[in-house]
């Protein structure tokens, strides 16, 4: 296995820039200025640092060493086994998932003041619990004495992480400025190449290094002998970009043992007069198939350093890498599941673009390794990449979990991709889960496509009534008027829900040719279908059906309300014959009719006034409420309300005042500027 390619495995090495940051990876050649830490970045940072539990250093000395080596801040928790508040701190504050996620960015040490009096004295601890925050150099930056609630601690930790991010940004900007001006101190070169291992700083650092003329060959070659692996890796990555070769240098070997020959070659290269060639380093070279194969082996191997390095290098040549992955998978049919997942993660990261805030690496990881919640969220996130996300989302249409397939369907349609209808058609041909089929049919209503309409029409004869209903709803959303025959067929369906849905579709699409069939449904055995038919008729036009409606009004109490509503919607007055019929009916029927009156104009005023002056107090109050709220523009209504106020019946007065109180509330709210 080759070791000499240069891209880095720095993410697992820790120096002062070792904290992983949440910014999109940049493509080679794009400008990548340092963005200021955004408000959500700390959250994202904390999320990325999530670990299972809290890892405490064995003692203060060990914590200090780790902090200095890994450049991490320290949280020292001073406690005592006799302290009840400490127990509460353990059980509540430090058990909070929000707190634990953020603490992953700190070196933690728990100091029992009864056992380690020296450290307690050094920090002048007077009571427990006490939380002392220190920077990597060991200087105290903050102290929280006493019990601290999780919410407060989260705020404090966020503040520290944000400050840290800011100071790292400033430090790198200083270094890069010195680099560009040729004033970088010798001892700072190591810091610069280590910055390549951090996603946040990688692109600007790489650009700054490769833009230098003359190329800083001597300084970088000197770093190949540095004592830290992370520095050697960083230097080798840049050098390999410049030279187009690694000269057999193995960064994992402790220098100078066994690397002398390679180092000699590097030294020779660094001083050669033609080392810069035509003035351009061999940037972004195309990877050979064999190299890709080796790197993919590293990627799926056990060594995390090599895997990370392989991932970085492979990302530099996405097109060759995608081909290489396909060839690799074909050549290794028995790959273990874990290896397959790593390859899939890399493939998604290469396929997805940096667009609309999408971080391909992060989302690819979540898609492959996340739990159900995380995967579903990642699928929705991917849709922002629109057309470019389609190949990735399409793979999830074949996921074994129906919920994932449903979410993939939603995401696919959100992308607005032209391939969506074809992919959904293919899915429908093999899909056996009713929930997924339902979602596909629902989403076809959001895709204006002849093929999609054809698929929906085929489902109008399905034995599953849910499918027929959702297909009808989707057809209604498509706003096509060429579906009269198919919808008419559903009006004759034996299932009442289907007939109702077909009536709704006929109403939404104003399919006037279906009016005779709708009139026929006024005699449907199902009451809800009858009332739906009345509503549909209001939209299609009552026209010749008025006598039929009068006939039904006379015999069917349940339909009196819908018929009144339909007539009012069709801008028709309530015929006198209907008013006479209603006058003879019980109060409950009249109340049901009033439920269907939404505004009071001349066409319905007679009816409402009759109710408002009825002897029955329930009906009178319902009528008066309606008049007071929506009828005062009509003279007859005003007179009725005034007359009832004068008569002074307490219950009727309260009904009128109730409306007035609501109106006053609304007016006062408006005056106060509230919605």
């Amino acid at each position: 296995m080759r070791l000499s390619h240069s891209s880095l495995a720095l993410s697992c090495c820790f120096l002062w820039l070792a904290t992983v940051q949440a910014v999109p990876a940049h493509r080679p050649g794009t400008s990548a200025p340092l963005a200021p830490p955004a408000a959500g970045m700390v959250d994202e940072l904390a999320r990325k640092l999530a670990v299972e539990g809290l890892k405490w250093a064995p003692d203060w000395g060990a914590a200090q060493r780790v902090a200095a080596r890994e450049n991490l801040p320290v949280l020292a928790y001073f406690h005592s086994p006799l302290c009840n508040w400490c127990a509460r701190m353990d059980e509540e504050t430090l058990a909070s998932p929000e707190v634990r996620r953020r603490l992953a960015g700190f070196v933690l040490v728990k100091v029992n003041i009864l056992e380690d009096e020296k450290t307690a004295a050094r920090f002048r601890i007077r009571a427990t619990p006490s939380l002392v925050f220190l920077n990597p150099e060991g200087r105290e930056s903050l102290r929280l004495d006493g019990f601290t609630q999780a919410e407060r601690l989260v705020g404090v930790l966020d503040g520290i992480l944000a400050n840290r991010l800011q100071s790292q940004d400033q430090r790198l900007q200083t270094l890069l400025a010195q680099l560009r001006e040729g004033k970088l101190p010798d001892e700072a070169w190591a810091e610069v190449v280590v910055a390549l291992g951090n996603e946040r700083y990688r692109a600007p650092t790489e650009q700054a290094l490769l833009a230098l003329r003359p190329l800083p060959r001597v300084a970088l070659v000197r770093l190949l002998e540095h004592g830290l692996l992370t520095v050697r890796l960083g230097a080798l990555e840049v050098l390999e970009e410049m030279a187009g070769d690694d000269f057999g240098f193995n960064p994992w070997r402790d220098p100078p043992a066994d690397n002398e020959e390679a180092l000699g070659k590097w030294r020779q290269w660094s001083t050669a007069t033609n080392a810069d060639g035509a003035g351009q380093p061999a940037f972004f070279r195309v990877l050979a198939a064999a190299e890709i194969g080796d790197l993919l082996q590293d990627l799926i191997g056990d060594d995390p350093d090599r895997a990370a390095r392989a991932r970085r290098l492979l990302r530099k040549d996405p097109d060759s890498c995608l081909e290489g992955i396909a060839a690799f998978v074909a050549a290794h049919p028995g790959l273990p599941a874990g290896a397959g997942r790593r390859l899939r993660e890399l493939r998604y990261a290469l396929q997805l673009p940096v667009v609309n805030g999408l971080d391909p690496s992060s989302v690819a990881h979540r898609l492959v390794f996340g739990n159900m919640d995380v995967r579903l969220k990642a699928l929705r996130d991917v849709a922002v990449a629109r057309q470019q996300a389609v190949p990735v989302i399409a793979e999830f249409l074949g996921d074994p979990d129906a919920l994932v397939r449903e979410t993939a369907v939603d995401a696919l349609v959100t992308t607005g991709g032209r391939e969506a209808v074809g992919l959904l058609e293919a899915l429908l041909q093999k899909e056996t889960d009713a929930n997924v089929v339902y979602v596909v049919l629902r989403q076809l209503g959001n895709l204006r496509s002849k093929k999609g309409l054809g698929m929906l029409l085929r489902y109008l004869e399905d034995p599953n009534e849910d499918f027929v209903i959702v297909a009808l709803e989707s057809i209604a959303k498509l706003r096509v008027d060429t579906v009269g025959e198919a919808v008419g067929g559903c009006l004759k369906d034996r299932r009442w829900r289907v007939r109702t849905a077909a009536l709704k579709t006929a109403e939404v699409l104003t399919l006037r040719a279906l009016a005779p069939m709708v009139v026929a449904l006024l005699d449907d055995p199902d009451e809800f279908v009858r009332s739906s038919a009345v509503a549909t008729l209001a939209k299609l036009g009552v026209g010749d059906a008025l006598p039929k409606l009068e006939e039904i009004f006379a015999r069917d109490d349940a339909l009196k309300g819908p018929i009144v509503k339909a007539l009012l919607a069709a801008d028709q007055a309530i015929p006198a014959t209907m008013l006479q019929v209603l006058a003879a009916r019980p109060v409950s029927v009249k109340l049901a009719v009033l439920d269907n009156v939404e505004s009071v104009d001349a066409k319905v005023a007679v009816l409402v006034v009759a109710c408002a002056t009825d002897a029955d107090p329930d009906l009178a109050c319902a009528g008066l409420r309606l008049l007071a709220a929506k009828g005062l523009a009509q003279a007859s209504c005003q007179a009725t309300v005034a007359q009832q106020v004068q008569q002074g019946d307490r219950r009727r007065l309260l009904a009128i005042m109730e409306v007035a109180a609501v109106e006053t509330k609304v007016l006062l709210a408006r005056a106060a500027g509230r919605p």
Partner: protein
Amino acid sequence: MKTRKTWIKLLMAAASLLGALPEVCAEAIQCANLIYGGTHTSRCFSDEFLSAVQKDTTIETERRFKTVKLASDELFKYPFTVLTGEKDFHFTADERKNLKRYLESGGFLLVSAGCSNQEFDKAFRREIKAVFEDKPLGALAADHTIYRTVHPVAELKTKGHGYGANEKIALEGLTVGEKTVLVYSKHGLNDTAHTEGCCCCGGSEITNALEVNVNILVYALLY
């Protein structure tokens, strides 16, 4: 979450053994939205919580509602039903009788005033009083199981403005025996953010309705 899922699994197993779950629980749970007052439909209530229950628990759900008439015998095939609306209404005599029988024989009803609608609120209070003269609606205590079956719900959140914004935010319930069989929200649990073609403009609906509805469904099925 893993522990909670295991716990729910155990409860499901126990409930099945005791025969506490309706027959339909052997397969995926399907929930109904009701046609009531003869012609009123329960539209604009998000079905997103059905997916969330499938995702967050071991309970299998059908991720869509079935439209069912409150007065029909079909009602008894569904262990969980939803009733919502944005206007005044009256239950028919058959609906009142059927609802009483349904709730007293193991069914569960979630009622939501669509977009904090006051007319609906008044109508529902009037109608439920007519159905259960001796059982008033009462506020659910802060430590009610419903607030912690799956998601710990420390508070009900609303937009903070609109109708009902100044009124106390609490779920109300109706109890039969020792079980809450009906939950009502006058602010609204419709979760319109997850509905297509619906919005709540001017009302003060509960914004963490998704988690609350998940809890209510799990409570209805397991307790």
